[in-house]
């Protein structure tokens, strides 16, 4: 469910006892609670849902996923041109 959007941590500060991050979503910034990703650091990408980071994006896994798909694209050979 759950709209979750990845964004980059550009700053970290504490507010009311909670670890909060300034997250850049690509031209739009928002404060997000980092309490559930205590290991997250500036420049990490996190998945944000309802104002909270719920995971740190694993760039290696993302790469691996895209590589797998790249292999499928290669297997299928040169496709038809864009219509």
């Amino acid at each position, binding site marked *: 469910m759950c709209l*979750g959007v990845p964004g980059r941590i550009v700053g970290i500060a504490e507010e*009311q006892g909670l670890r909060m991050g300034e997250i850049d979503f690509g031209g739009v910034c928002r404060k997000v609670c980092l309490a559930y990703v205590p290991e997250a650091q500036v420049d990490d990408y996190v998945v944000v849902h309802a104002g909270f980071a*719920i995971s740190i*994006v694993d*760039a290696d896994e*993302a790469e691996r996923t895209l590589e*797998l798909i790249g292999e*499928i694209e290669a297997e299928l050979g040169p*496709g038809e041109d864009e219509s």
Partner: protein
Amino acid sequence: MKFVDEFRDAAAVRALADHIGSIVTRPWTIMEVCGGQTHTIVRCGLDELLPREIALVHGPGCPVCVTPIEMIDMAIEIARRPGVILCSFGDMLRVPGSKGDLFDARAAGADVRIVYSPLDALAVARRETEREVVFFAVGFETTAPTTAMAVHQAARLGMTNFSVISAHVRVPPAIEAILSSPSNRVQGFLAAGHVCTVMGIDEYRPIVERCRVPIVVTGFEPVDLMQGVAMCLAQLEEGRAEVENQYARSVRADGNREARRLIEEVFVPADRRWRGMETLPQSGLALSRRYRDFDAIRRFAIALPDADEPQECRAGEVLRGLIKPPQCPAFGKACTPERPMGAPMVSSEGACAAYFRAGRFGAAEAR
């Protein structure tokens, strides 16, 4: 946007569609559980790219749609109490209760505000110390930890003017209910990637072992969904039944431990009636004893009679993937986004609204 655009690549989507077409040998019915996934599928027309053999059906993964009508009535009742500020996610505001929705309550003078996060509701409570702030907590296990933190903070800060209506629900009981129904046609599942980001994937193993259905934890972008279908199909064609993780860039096997810990501290599982379905045991989350002071229903001493759905509304069958929206006789006629009869027509993640807005009315849609 990084980690988004790459997973919307059209060439990759087409390649995956071709690949799926090349490995399928017979008809299969796959259900995607999450409303956000339904939204992407309908927006991008992904099901049109799949071979005819694959029927993608939509599950009850729209927490807005399945929130029991009684809870909406309670939220409206609380919002109408003098001095109350009711904070809610935007998409809940138009879901009809038995006599109108939260928008109507607002029109009649209630202070109803849209928030993006439970922490925003908490901030309102900190600012408006003379008012009672109530947060309508809707959502699956993805959202539960966000509510949990707001309640935990309120307790820590000694706040006395904040409470929540906990309408959170859990996914696994819904999957079990679908699988145990005698009319079930679903043979494989695409599980909700953000729910699993929080809960991990282990709770699906017993379901897979008992029911012998493949479950692929899947993300929300077009590439994710196509890859999830490809992985599920491979299992079905090969006669396997396992839990697989397509969304590994966000989902770890044990999920988010800190979030799960706080869910367990703030909430307890409770039986919950799902709108359009029956009561599913242990499928809801209620506030635990330790945090019961933050339970709005308790604080406002609300008790309302059970509410009934209009007879014509077949939301339950849609939510269970038994019919597609165009097969409901009310779809597009008595029931439209402007005059919704049931919740899947109101929330834009609801299958009925998604189909209506995408213009899918025909018999072809009902396959």
